[in-house]
């Protein structure tokens, strides 16, 4: 009884609840406009993100602990098996890499003959994904490295099989990325068989991308591999994206109905690789100088 009375007297001391609510609502609208128009608020976001970081670490901790238990609990035999499997894999990869080095040198030579721009080889770094569910209505993930490690907006993420997504928001120690399957994501791709260029859109399903802009007579068939075309500047060219699974051509429709399955296991990855490539703005100024 006493407490509810003191509550009421405290409530009476709030100058005017309506005025306060109105002021805060207008403030949020102002913030949203600033945030939506240009990225004026990136620094503020980063500062607040530092406050959210401990929460993310705590939420991620059980998964991390489980992985740690599993790793330390692995028996000697399991480790030996894994070791021999990895050594064999490494041998195979190295053998393939030897050929790749020769091919790369040849490619550079040919490009020089054609006087084409040399392809930039990106630096790569592995980043761990935090077991944090950011937003159920978007396909995104949080990675455990951020501005401190030189992550930048729009950076490409790949896993061992193909393109995963790109960074959309850089915090101090974490970064958020959206997956190529997010309905708001579009990725310039080309068919590796014949160089046909198009755009792959996310659908909101982890195992399906849409290619809506291919005319009925386009040379594309099931099983074609789609790779990044490098147009648009965000992704370096030549990374596998998806395999075409279905091509439906209806004579009455102007465009064919083409869907593809992402090469990367988008909802199962635990680690991704970030690619540092020359940013598009730098490229354009280079060309202007030339």
């Amino acid at each position: 009884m006493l407490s509810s009375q003191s509550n009421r007297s405290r409530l009476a001391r709030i100058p005017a609840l309506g005025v306060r609510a109105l002021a805060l609502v207008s403030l949020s609208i102002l913030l949203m406009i600033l945030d939506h128009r240009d990225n004026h608020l990136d620094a503020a976001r980063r500062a607040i993100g530092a406050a959210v970081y401990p929460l993310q670490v705590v939420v991620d901790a059980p998964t991390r602990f489980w992985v740690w238990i599993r790793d330390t609990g692995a028996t000697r035999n399991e480790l030996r098996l894994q070791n021999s499997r990895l050594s064999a894999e490494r041998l195979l990869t190295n053998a393939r890499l030897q050929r790749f080095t020769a091919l790369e040198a040849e490619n550079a030579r040919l490009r020089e003959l054609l006087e084409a721009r040399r392809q930039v080889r990106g630096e790569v770094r592995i980043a761990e994904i935090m077991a944090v569910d950011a937003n159920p209505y978007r396909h995104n993930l949080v990675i455990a490295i951020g501005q401190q490690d030189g992550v930048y907006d729009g950076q490409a993420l790949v896993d061992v099989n193909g393109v995963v997504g790109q960074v959309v928001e850089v915090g101090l120690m974490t970064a958020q990325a959206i997956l190529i399957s997010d309905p708001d994501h579009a990725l310039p791709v080309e068919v590796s068989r014949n160089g046909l260029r198009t755009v792959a859109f996310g659908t909101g399903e982890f195992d399906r991308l849409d290619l809506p802009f291919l005319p009925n007579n386009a040379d594309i068939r099931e099983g074609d591999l789609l790779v990044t075309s490098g147009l648009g500047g965000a992704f370096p060219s030549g990374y596998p994206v998806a395999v075409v699974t279905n091509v439906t051509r209806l004579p009455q429709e102007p465009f064919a109905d083409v869907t593809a399955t992402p090469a990367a296991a988008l909802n199962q990855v635990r680690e991704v690789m970030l690619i540092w490539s020359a940013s598009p703005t730098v490229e354009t100024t280079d060309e202007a100088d030339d």
Partner: protein
Amino acid sequence: MISARASRHTPAIVTVLLALMLTLVPLPENLAPFRPDWVVLILIYWAMTAPGDYNVGSAFVIGILLDVAQGTLLGQHALALCVIVYITIKFHLLMRVFPLLQLTATVFALLTLYQFLLFWINGVAAVTAPTIGYWAPVITGAIVWPFLSMFLSGVRFRAQTKG
């Protein structure tokens, strides 16, 4: 003085932090759309029972944290939470005497409004419209509300008798 203040606010702060964590905890892909809006539920409870302590200001701060954690427009959740807490405080005396069923129906309406505000802002900002599953948290939220409010009443009672 300060420690007394701190202990009075401890239950609310701890439960809000827990709600933020529950919002971030990864769920299986087919369960994720059904996650209740924990933060709104907790804020409705504290705004209803202690409107002098927790009002639109706290809702705004927590909303901004939620915006950064979820990567939405800065101010989106803040606006929605402010509106919900404002309505709750306006009607808190009425809501306190509601029987549980009626109170749950009120919370259902508040959750619908909250989800609609977020939906509307997404529409204005041209974020792709989500599927019908977008409205699932309203239903799961109303289902967990009776249990949550009983649990929180227990927490509050214990904190009061102790302090």
